[in-house]
């Protein structure tokens, strides 16, 4: 009997624990260390020439310097980081750069034009996934040494195949792939002519405010202050990025003071933290847009009136206010707000009657049945379910096909979907990055090699191909912006994309941490000026 009583007491203790008020908490992380809980299991490399994932891009942004940077508050303002100045040749095909002379790598080696030239050539020669960002100026592994050439200890030239808009080129040089690496250190670790690729995948050779001390995949990244860095910094000696996959666990850790910043909290968790005076929720619009891709191989979706009808069957505002609360704002253009030429027009609202009329005009008065490949991820699934309901109101029977991220992506890239719900973020801060994928598809055959989003949805944009190409050669920023505005409106009206939202990134920060910056792109989130 005593055993029974003890057992019941133990059960009671557990239930009582649930009802107890939260114990008083105190920040337990060291004063000079910022501890962040974040889902960082997407990191597969630390080499800037290969990094193309969100988490690694952010780490690189805090540890490497690029030639060019931009104002996080106003992306249109470009400035030199490693570059002190630059000029454009009369024919517009060559950019000449002067490098700052006071910079050193964390290794102690001086940073010169030789390092910058090596870094850019190396990225082109290695030809990893992001190499196209700088390769698109006519640079290839074969001609990289000829086209990117050192002209002095602190000067070099970049020669291009066409007179691209200078802003386009400069924005591309703000990307992670254009980070400057320490030539001597990298080549000291070269194996069989791999340009140090095998070594730099897991090591560090930069000059940024922090240096990477350790990376344990799906577990932790530790960066430490680079004492050779001479720019302004906060008070941190190190930053620990801990992989905490479960968002509820992130919240518990934050409330307890065992971490300083939680990066992946959902709308419910953010709501729960709203009344906590020790926690501040920061947010910033990101370049990522959420959209539906309508495959033009589907006979119904290929009809222009059906595409238009579906754009009237999404409740944009409700999705932004509920499913994506705090995490997105309604947006319908392919360029995110803040980017050159972005339009904020929102011609579509939920209008079931209009959608039904359009479907009837398209010969589908009773609607039709269609599937949507959907990643099994809470936000995407929530959006899909909301869209399923409003589609049903218009007579469109939407079947959601759940799947793992890479599984749905594989199907999407093979053009085997009906509708795909996904997200797209810019690769760099120039509008061409999104214009190229949403409005350009030079070869719509199944064998087409430029697998833009337009290609994936089997959409031939016709004249928009040429208009997209023309926009990157326009050197007048105002005219260029107008060209992108025109492109966006045309894609919005006729394209196979139902663009629903622009992402807002949120971080919950525990006081007294200050100075953490969420920038407009994932590689611009900064811990450099953080104080505790």
């Amino acid at each position, binding site marked *: *009997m005593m*055993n*029974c009583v003890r*057992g*019941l007491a133990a059960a009671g203790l*557990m239930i009582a*624990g*649930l009802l*107890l*008020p*939260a*114990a008083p908490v105190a920040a337990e*992380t*060291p004063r000079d*260390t910022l*501890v962040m809980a974040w889902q960082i*299991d997407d990191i*597969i*490399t630390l080499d800037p020439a290969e990094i*193309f*994932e969100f988490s690694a891009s952010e780490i690189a942004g805090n540890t490497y310097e690029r030639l060019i940077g931009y104002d996080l508050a106003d992306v249109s303002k470009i400035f030199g980081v490693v570059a002190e100045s630059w000029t454009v040749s009369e024919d517009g095909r060559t950019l000449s750069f002067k490098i700052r002379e006071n910079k050193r790598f964390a290794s102690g080696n001086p940073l010169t034009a030789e390092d910058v030239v090596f870094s850019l050539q190396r990225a082109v020669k290695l*030809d*990893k*996934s*992001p*190499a*196209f960002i700088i390769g698109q100026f006519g640079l290839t592994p074969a001609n990289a040494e000829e086209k990117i050439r050192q002209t002095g200890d602190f000067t070099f030239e970049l020669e291009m195949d066409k007179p691209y808009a200078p802003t386009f080129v400069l924005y591309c040089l703000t990307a992670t792939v254009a980070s400057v690496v320490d030539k001597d250190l990298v080549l000291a670790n070269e194996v069989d002519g791999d340009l140090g690729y095998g070594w730099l*995948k*897991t090591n560090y050779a930069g000059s940024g405010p922090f240096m990477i001390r*350790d990376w*344990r*995949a*799906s*577990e*932790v990244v530790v960066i430490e202050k680079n004492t050779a860095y001479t720019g302004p910094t906060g008070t941190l000696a190190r930053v*620990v990025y*801990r*992989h*905490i*996959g*479960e968002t*509820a*666990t992130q919240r*518990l*850790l934050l*409330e*307890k003071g*065992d971490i300083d910043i939680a990066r992946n909290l959902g709308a419910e968790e953010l709501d729960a933290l709203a009344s906590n005076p020790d926690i501040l929720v920061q947010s910033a619009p990101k370049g990522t847009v959420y959209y539906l891709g309508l495959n033009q191989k589907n006979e119904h979706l290929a009809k222009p009136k059906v595409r238009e009808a579906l754009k009237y069957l999404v409740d944009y505002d409700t999705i932004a206010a509920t499913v994506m609360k705090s995490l997105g704002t309604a947006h319908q253009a392919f360029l995110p707000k803040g980017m050159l030429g972005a339009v904020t027009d929102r011609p579509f609202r939920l209008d079931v009657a209009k959608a039904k009329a359009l479907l009837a005009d398209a010969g589908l008065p009773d609607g039709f049945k269609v599937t949507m490949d959907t990643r099994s991820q809470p936000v995407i699934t929530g959006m899909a379910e909301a869209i399923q309901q409003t589609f049903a109101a218009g007579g469109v029977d939407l079947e959601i096909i759940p799947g*793992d*991220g*890479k*599984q749905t*992506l*594989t*199907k999407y*890239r093979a053009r085997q979907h009906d509708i795909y719900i996904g997200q797209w973020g810019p*690769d760099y801060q120039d509008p061409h990055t999104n214009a190229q994928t949403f409005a350009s598809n030079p070869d719509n055959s199944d064998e087409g*090699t*430029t*697998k833009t989003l337009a290609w994936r949805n089997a959409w031939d944009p016709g004249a928009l191909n040429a208009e997209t190409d023309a926009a990157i050669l326009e050197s007048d920023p105002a005219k260029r912006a107008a060209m992108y505005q025109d492109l966006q409106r045309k894609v919005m009206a006729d394209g196979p994309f139902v663009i629903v939202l622009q992402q807002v990134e949120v971080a919950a920060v525990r006081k007294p941490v200050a100075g953490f910056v969420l920038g407009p792109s994932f590689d611009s989130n900064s811990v450099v000026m953080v104080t505790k």
Partner: protein
Amino acid sequence: MAVAAPRRQDGERGAAALRILIAVAKFAAMLAVTLVGLAAVTFVIGRVVPIDPVLAVVGDRAPQRVYDRVRAEMGLDLPLIEQFWLYLSRILTGDFGRSVLTTNPVLTDIARYFPATLELATLGTLFGTLVGVPLGVLAAVRRDTLLDQLVRVVGLIGYSVPIFWLGLMALLVFYARLDWAPGPGRLDIAYDYIVTPVTGLLLVDSLIAGEPGVFWNALSHAMLPGLVLGYFSLAYISRMTRSFMLHELAQEYIVAARVKGLSETRIIWRHALRNAAVPLVTVIALSYAHLLEGSVLTETVFAWPGLGSYLTNSLQSADMNAVLGATLVIGASFVLLNLLSDIAYRLLDPRTR
């Protein structure tokens, strides 16, 4: 006779040696067949799942020429049978390839992730056995009493409650509210980087390094996830113990023992439990093997870098070198635990010798 005796002893020794040799050969054959079979099945599954493994390497936006080059580098343009043969040839030389996700050799990854899982699984099994067996015995002895009902309810909850929910509740209560347990992860930040990994088992490595502070910190971090896993082990073991004990307590030899006047304690713990222990060994071994597979949900909730998370992440990215390596380790663990069960049988049951 005096001359013949040593010969017979020699003959017996030779026969025993032969029996051991045959047993070892059988085990080696079973291990080989299991591992090759596992490798074949996993390999085929990995190739037929609708996930493109190249995407894990190059991402979604790589130009087609980069995609094609990486596909060729990964050998995915070769016929399936040739890919499998190449893989088998490599693993026979100890080369399990590299993981796409971590960039490390798969064996390096396994040496890092498996010990983390081994620690949790061992703690869980110890808890499940040390608590589950006595509970099961008491439930059987006091059949249909309140205690029995309670043990059955505990077992039922263990079977039916989702483990991630229990993990979160445990964190909420014992970490967030009561402050009895540390948070997720294997160590507090202050203790990180103090101990150089030798075995990968933090509890062992910290002792080797003479760092008691790290040991206690690692132990405190392992307790909560270990107990959560152990609860599920307990549910299974207590239920099966109860069932085996009920069977044994109904046997005639128990009646005979009582007639002989043996104490009830001796009858239960020395006689009935000893006989119930034979099938119980299999139950405990299976439970242990199950925990060694890694409980991905527990590992996720407690941010525990174990084999379950590694395998799941790898599967989701079709990182097949990692999947195959982890699967083979799990397969080998099953075979090894099977062998240990067999040895335990022989020790516990003279009829099997």
